[in-house]
């Protein structure tokens, strides 16, 4: 039984890979059957954000860097790839390489500046840079970014197998591929010698410095790797949605990633992925809920908050921070801890009080 449980990621992967061939209806969770293009699109988006959150957690959960500017690297990958095709007429593969290269360059540049400040200052500086990026995209310099409207990807330069509703399954597999790559890269990086230094930096940066290692360099590597993964995510997002929109660069995107990581459990292997998938799914379904007639008929006291997805999101976030420290991934350990605490109490005969356990993030 235990051995079987250990193989669940493989089982899940196989399920994910064959999902497009299935016509299994999933009432409540998805609108259409599993293999329909609408469902596949939503699942692909869920997986994409799961992967993005996993990459973001390389900073937050693994190195202890609270960046508020991750959307910038996602948007850079997205816009640079799109503009590489539109303005430079590069074929898709070259444009994607160009997009990721731009992201890496920007991450090196801005990371090396913002890591000069530690702690919360770092968060504020990354936020300021990301905001500048968002403003730049909005202002539409030279008509390049398309401002509010964004720019749609040129159909003639995209591979024909990734175009149109009939090819949704291919796009879905691209998203699965990106997820696999991210999970593998993060897993590999975290278990590398650098990963152990990151862990040390997260616990106590000064101690790492006293050991004779320069935290700055290690943090920069984490920042750039995480940024590069986000940039690649931007490329996948471009394929999935067929264009670049300014919302990708906004601070709400970073905050959404943060919510995903915290919801799932930061610093855990599967938590951010789970959080990203759940969040994205809930985000889409909440949007439907907000527009549904059931909400429109409610009295104003309930209708107004329920019709604002961001309100629900913010409230959910506060609730997770309070009620679920450690996120969903920490839930089994918390339940186990409270159960063992209860059994100890029954053995010793201590009246039940506050359950112990659960380590604060």
């Amino acid at each position, binding site marked *: 039984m235990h051995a079987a449980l250990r193989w669940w990621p493989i089982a899940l992967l196989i399920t994910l890979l064959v999902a497009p061939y299935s016509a299994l209806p999933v009432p409540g969770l998805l609108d259409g059957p599993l293999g329909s293009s609408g469902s596949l699109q939503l699942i692909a988006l869920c997986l994409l954000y799961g992967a993005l959150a996993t990459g973001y957690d390389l900073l937050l959960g693994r190195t202890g860097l609270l960046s508020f500017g991750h959307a910038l690297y996602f948007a850079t990958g997205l816009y640079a790839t799109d503009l590489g095709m539109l303005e430079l007429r590069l074929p898709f593969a070259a444009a994607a390489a160009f997009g990721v290269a731009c992201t890496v360059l920007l991450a090196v540049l801005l990371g090396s500046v913002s890591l000069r400040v530690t702690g919360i200052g770092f968060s504020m500086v990354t936020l300021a840079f990301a905001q500048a990026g968002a403003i730049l995209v909005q202002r539409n310099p030279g008509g390049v970014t398309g401002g509010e409207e964004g720019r749609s990807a040129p159909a003639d330069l995209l591979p024909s197998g990734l175009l149109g509703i009939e090819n949704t399954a291919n796009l879905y597999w691209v998203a699965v591929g990106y997820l696999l790559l991210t999970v593998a890269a993060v897993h590999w990086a975290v278990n590398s010698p650098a990963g152990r230094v990151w862990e040390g930096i997260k616990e106590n940066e000064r101690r790492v410095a006293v050991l004779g290692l320069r935290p700055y360099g290690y943090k920069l590597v984490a920042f750039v790797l995480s940024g590069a993964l986000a940039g690649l995510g931007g490329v996948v997002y471009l394929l999935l949605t067929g264009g670049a929109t300014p919302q990708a660069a906004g601070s709400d995107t970073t905050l959404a990633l943060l919510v995903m990581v915290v919801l799932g459990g930061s610093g855990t292997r599967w938590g951010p992925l789970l959080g990203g998938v759940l969040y994205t799914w809930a985000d889409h379904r909440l949007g439907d809920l907000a527009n549904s007639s059931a909400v429109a008929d409610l009295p104003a006291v309930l209708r107004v908050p329920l019709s604002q997805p*961001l309100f629900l999101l913010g409230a*959910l976030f*506060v609730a997770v921070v309070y009620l679920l420290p450690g996120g969903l991934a920490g839930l089994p350990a918390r339940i186990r801890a409270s159960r063992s605490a209860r059994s100890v109490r029954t053995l010793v005969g201590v009246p039940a009080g506050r359950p112990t356990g659960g380590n604060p993030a």
Partner: protein
Amino acid sequence: MDTVVLLSCTGLGLGALYFLVASGLSLIFGLMDVLNFAHGALLSIGSYATWWAGTEAGFSFWLAVPFGTLVGTAAAVLLELFLIRPLYSRPRDQILATVGVGLAVPALLMGIWGADARPFPQPALLAGTWHVLGATVPVNRFVLVAAAGLLLLTLRLFLARTRYGLIVRAGVEDRAMVTALGIDVQRAFTLVFALGGAAAALGGALGGLYFGSVNPGQGTSLLIFAFVVVVMGGMGSVTGAAVASVGVGLVQQFANYYTGAGLGDLSVVVLLAVLLLVRPRGLTGRLA
């Protein structure tokens, strides 16, 4: 010449607005290590409460501003008591909880009053212009500068001359030691939060005057510049924040006018990057 004067006055007004937001942020950060993402929400609450009192409730402007400030202060105290305090031992979760509030409150305001900007009631006394060295400057710029100057003075007196100010200053230096001496730092937290909330709400009320309207996103966008100001001024330093506010406001106005295409916002970030390269600890050299 008159353009330069006008830009300087407007830049100072904007800087004053940044200072109103940033001073509370800086104090809260300095004392509690909490990056208060809900500060923009407090500002929005202040500006909407003022707008509501001034239009829907029919208060005069001079009553609406204290009312808005009071509502913002109350919101700040509630935030501290119910959301921040239970997470006392988890500083990162305190930040995350404020992120949640910072998302939820503007969304709620948008749900109630819509996403569009609402015209802000301007009293006749403040709607006019003054002639300064040949330039025609809207009066409300001076109101903002006066409010910010008064706030700076009040905060400096509070920090330097009162017992609570002493506790706050000591708490910024070494919170553990102050607690060990048996002083209730918690109460100082609530007080600092109330002060910060009052400043932010006042900033919201006067920001309505500056922009001529209120909208749900105003608080969040001002908050970003307030963050820049706090980092540039040196964490937790009110005077540093004041100097940085003036710099940021002026640079933004001049860059906006002379470079066009709204490069002012970008120039602020460039200014921040340059400063961090030269002085990673900000103007006052405080540790981050």
